[in-house]
């Protein structure tokens, strides 16, 4: 077993490449389930150690570093891939499954890599494959959103690459990916961190996330919400544990997401803003950097992947069935889609950290780590953000889709019904896991990178959580009029590149293009035409002016003009003839000088 190691990403890649052969026919569904399942089992059976060492150019690359930190992420990622694939079983486009699997492969590759080269390889794979999940929705907005997503992620990848190259140079060729030395950060440290932060959607590098996840296909955003940001959290936990600046960044993130979630009218974009908010906890956890905090970040990522996947599945099923995702187009659907409501509610209660649900056992770990490190302001602000989480994901989403004012058009209402079986199965699995993790803590805690000495189910913690949550609910119902959805959008920082790109394109089209065209014709306008004119003028001068005296000179000039005309008509023998004459002239000039 020790020597024999198969990279789970390899299973996904090969599976994706062979998928077109199974895309039609009776083997389609078994195949779609089998590949992620094999990958998941592979992760379950995996030994700890270092595997997959490959020589490439001057480097020794490590594809398989299996330790406790990578294992917990690998476990949940492959599991989520299985759930997501089941959720998308009805999707007939083979390409969408392929993109999703390759994307998962990219994520797994990052988790198990031991060096920056492999990291970068899979990092780019994630960006270039996940964008297809946006494009597969097929709307014009999706195409543009995907394009921007790709550009933003390329920029992030480049920051990472630049940091890596600087580091490579500074360390004399060290490619090992481990703790980067947070005590003495250099430019390379910050660049690598920016690369990671962009994928983790930390403000100000976050605005790609709501845009992309709101525009992705129904199954696409179920995948996307699980992998990109959490892989980045893993990378941060691996390299930047204890980086102080991450604590305020994480707290700002947690609150930022909450504020924008209040303003959001699109259910999936609202959930996307709550990813930012939740990842904020993880980033803060990494910043605190103690064993408990890293445990908390890993546990929260684990729980988050499941409940956020569940929430996206719930809202996605509404979108899939009704074609709508905006609160102002929905409402009162509990009679039509009660089971979808129940699953979404479970997801909502999990993200809000209700006791007995998964968020409760993970989120509190980070907050507790903050308290025990005496970073009180962070701990209190994170607690405040968790009130906001419940307010929106736990209350606003279910309320305005399934209760509230019925804004459904007749067509929407008629189309609304429970989603297909495969979607429900996926949601049932995810719901079960959310509750299971919340109720049976050793399951998750035994997977964590460090030993856990934490029990969330103390009477005080229960009382504290219930008070915060239920009084938040009180506030929600008191202010419900204020929270009524508005058919507006909230401008986020993406305005910088959305409007900036327009400006840039104008710059490219007008000044740059004009100059280029001018240069392009310069040989003509500045070279040939004046020469021709001179020649004609000389010719005229010759005939009509000084007849006889300078006869010869003028005629020569005219001949040049004629010669040039011949160049224009492409008679090469003349061109060559004049070239040789010119050479002779130059030689003569040199010899004489």
């Amino acid at each position, binding site marked *: 077993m020790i020597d024999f190691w198969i990279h789970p990403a390899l299973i996904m890649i090969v599976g994706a490449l062979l998928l077109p052969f199974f895309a039609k026919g009776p083997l389609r569904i078994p195949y779609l389930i089998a590949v992620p399942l094999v990958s998941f089992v592979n992760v379950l059976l995996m030994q700890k150690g270092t595997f997959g060492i490959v020589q490439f150019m001057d480097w020794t690359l490590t594809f398989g570093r299996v330790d406790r930190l990578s294992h917990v992420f690998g476990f949940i990622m492959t599991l989520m891939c299985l759930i997501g694939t089941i959720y998308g079983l009805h999707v007939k486009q083979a390409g969408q499954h392929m993109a999703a699997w390759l994307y998962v492969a990219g994520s797994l590759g990052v988790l198990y890599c031991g060096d920056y080269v492999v990291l970068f390889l899979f990092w780019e794979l994630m960006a270039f494959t996940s964008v297809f999940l946006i494009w597969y929705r097929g709307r014009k907005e*999706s195409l543009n959103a*995907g394009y921007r997503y790709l*550009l933003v992620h*390329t920029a992030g990848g480049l920051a990472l690459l630049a940091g890596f*190259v600087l580091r490579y140079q500074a360390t004399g060729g060290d490619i090992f990916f481990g703790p980067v030395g947070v005590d003495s950060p250099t430019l390379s440290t910050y660049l690598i961190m920016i690369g990671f932060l962009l994928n983790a959607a930390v403000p100000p590098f976050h605005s790609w996330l709501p845009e992309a996840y709101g525009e992705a296909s129904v199954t696409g955003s179920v995948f996307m919400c699980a992998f990109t940001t959490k892989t980045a959290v893993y990378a941060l936990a691996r390299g930047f544990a204890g980086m102080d600046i991450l604590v305020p960044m994480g707290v700002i993130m947690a609150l930022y997401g909450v504020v924008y979630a209040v303003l959001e009218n699109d259910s999936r974009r609202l959930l996307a803003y709550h990813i930012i908010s939740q990842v904020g906890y993880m980033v803060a956890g990494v910043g605190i950097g103690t064993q408990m905090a890293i445990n908390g970040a890993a546990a929260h990522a684990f729980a988050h992947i499941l409940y956020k996947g569940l929430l996206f599945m719930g809202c996605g099923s509404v979108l899939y069935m009704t074609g709508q995702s905006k609160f102002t187009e929905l409402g009162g659907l509990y009679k039509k889609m009660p089971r979808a409501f129940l699953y979404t509610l479970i997801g909502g209660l999990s993200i809000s950290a209700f006791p007995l649900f998964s968020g409760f056992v993970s989120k509190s770990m980070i907050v507790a780590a903050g308290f025990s490190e005496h970073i009180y302001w962070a701990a209190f602000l994170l607690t405040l953000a968790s009130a906001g989480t419940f307010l929106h994901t736990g209350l606003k989403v279910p309320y305005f889709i399934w209760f509230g004012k019925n804004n459904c058009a007749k067509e929407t209402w008629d189309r609304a019904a429970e989603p297909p079986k495969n979607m429900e199965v996926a949601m049932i699995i995810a719901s079960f896991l959310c509750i299971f993790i919340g109720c049976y803590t050793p399951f998750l805690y035994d997977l964590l990178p460090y030993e856990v000495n934490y029990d969330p189910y103390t009477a005080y913690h229960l009382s504290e959580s219930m008070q915060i949550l239920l009084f938040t609910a009180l506030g929600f119902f008191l202010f419900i009029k204020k929270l009524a959805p508005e058919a507006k959008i909230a401008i986020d920082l993406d305005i910088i590149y959305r409007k900036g790109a327009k400006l840039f394109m104008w710059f490219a089209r007008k000044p740059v293009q004009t100059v*280029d065209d001018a240069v392009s014709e310069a040989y003509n306008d500045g070279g040939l035409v004046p020469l021709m004119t001179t020649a004609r003028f000389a010719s005229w001068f010759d005939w009509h002016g000084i007849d006889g005296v300078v006869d010869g000179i003028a005629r020569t000039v005219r001949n040049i003009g004629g010669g040039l005309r011949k160049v224009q*008509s492409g008679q*090469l023998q003349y061109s060559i003839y004049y070239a040789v004459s010119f*050479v002779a002239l130059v030689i003569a000039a040199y010899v004489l000088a």
Partner: protein
Amino acid sequence: MEIVSIKPLVAMLFALAGAILVSLSGRKPNLREGWSVVAAVCMFGTIASMVPEVMHGNMYKQTLFTILPGLSVTFRADAFSMIFAVVASFLWILAAFYSMGYMRGLNEHAQTRFNTCFALALFGAVGVAFADNLFTLYLFYEIVSVCTYPLVAHHQDEEGYEGARKYIVYLTTTAKGLVLPAMILIYVLTGTLDFATNVHTGIFPEGVSSVLVTVLYACCILGFAKNGVMPVHNWLPGAMVAPTPVSALLHAVAVVKVGVFSTTRVMLYVFGVDTMSALNLGVPTAYFVSFTILTASVIALTKDNLKSRLAYSTVSQLSYIILGVALLTPNGIEGGLVHIANHAFSKITLFFCAGAIYVATHKKYISEMSGLGRTMPFTFAAFGIASLSMIGAPPVAGFVTKWKLLVGAMEMPVHSLGILCVLLASTLLNVGYFAPVTYKAFFGKRPEGEPYVGVREAPLSMVIPIMIAAVISVIIGIWPDFMMTFVNMVTQ
């Protein structure tokens, strides 16, 4: 060790013989195209047969005749020549099949003239690769210019003549106006035009005026206008009026690489790394071509004509090669030179795709190709892969270049961050102008009233070369060792 052998010459003569045989068998199209393929295969075979010895550090050399002491027509095959010769001759085989599909698919006129000139252009290109001195190099450089003129003017319409005129004026004027005087001066100054045997020393003796050397250097950079450095790049977009196989093999591989090959050959083997660093020529050159890299990419963003966009992309990418060499660090030079091969395979794929699209649909503009990827999935998939290589995403070939260039830039004592920014910004721009072609083709809405009825993939004689070129782009990204062997030998 030097091996006196006529092998380099034989390789070239295959192309020449191919040209003659093609022109004689104009009446029988199958025989004519057969000769093209046979010539291409023989040439590649001869060049390949030199690979093992060159890899052992040997050099083939043969003098044809001597005009004056230090001025002769001499051929050599060293590691540096092999980079270009192997790539050009191999891609000629693919292009021969491809152009058969293209020219027949469109029922083009004057196919005999076309094929003859094509072979002659390759004759010139390989001649440049195997040139042992500046004089021989110049000779074949001009042969390439002249022989490709009829190819650019192929359509013989106003647009064709306009493009061809621009082409010939730019290329011959710069060569005669700048390179020729520079060459003469170098000969007078040094008494020889033979290239040095390593990249360091150059051929200039001690005590030559540094101003004079700098002027000569500038003449050489701008004079080999086939390298597409701004402001003498406009012949290349103009030359896009030619049939696509020409754009593919000649204006992505043979002709433009003749330009950068000549430029870098002169930079490394006439001036030499030592002279260049002593005179501080590296950094200004690097920034000079950086301007081209970025500006050409910005212009490419605005082009809706697919071939135009590719042309500006070529302008940008060619400067990567010169940039790499101008960094004057081992990794930089390696990155630049290996890009000769990497860019060749990827860019020829892109042009092949553009041609396949044109044959299948008669469409030239990107905006008209919306939704076409669903009808021509192989072509556009290949386009996507080759785009990734241009962008420099791992594991496709372009990443090797980008990595080497980045490390090379880092090795520079000064200005390393400036060059780093240029490389990164250019990558972003590459994504900016390549991604829309692929994603609009696969996911865009088909134009109203044009459901592409009856449109299918281009003929197999086109699709197979496309797939081969695309696959090789990936293979040389994952196993770059073959090309890297030559490149490493150059810098040692």
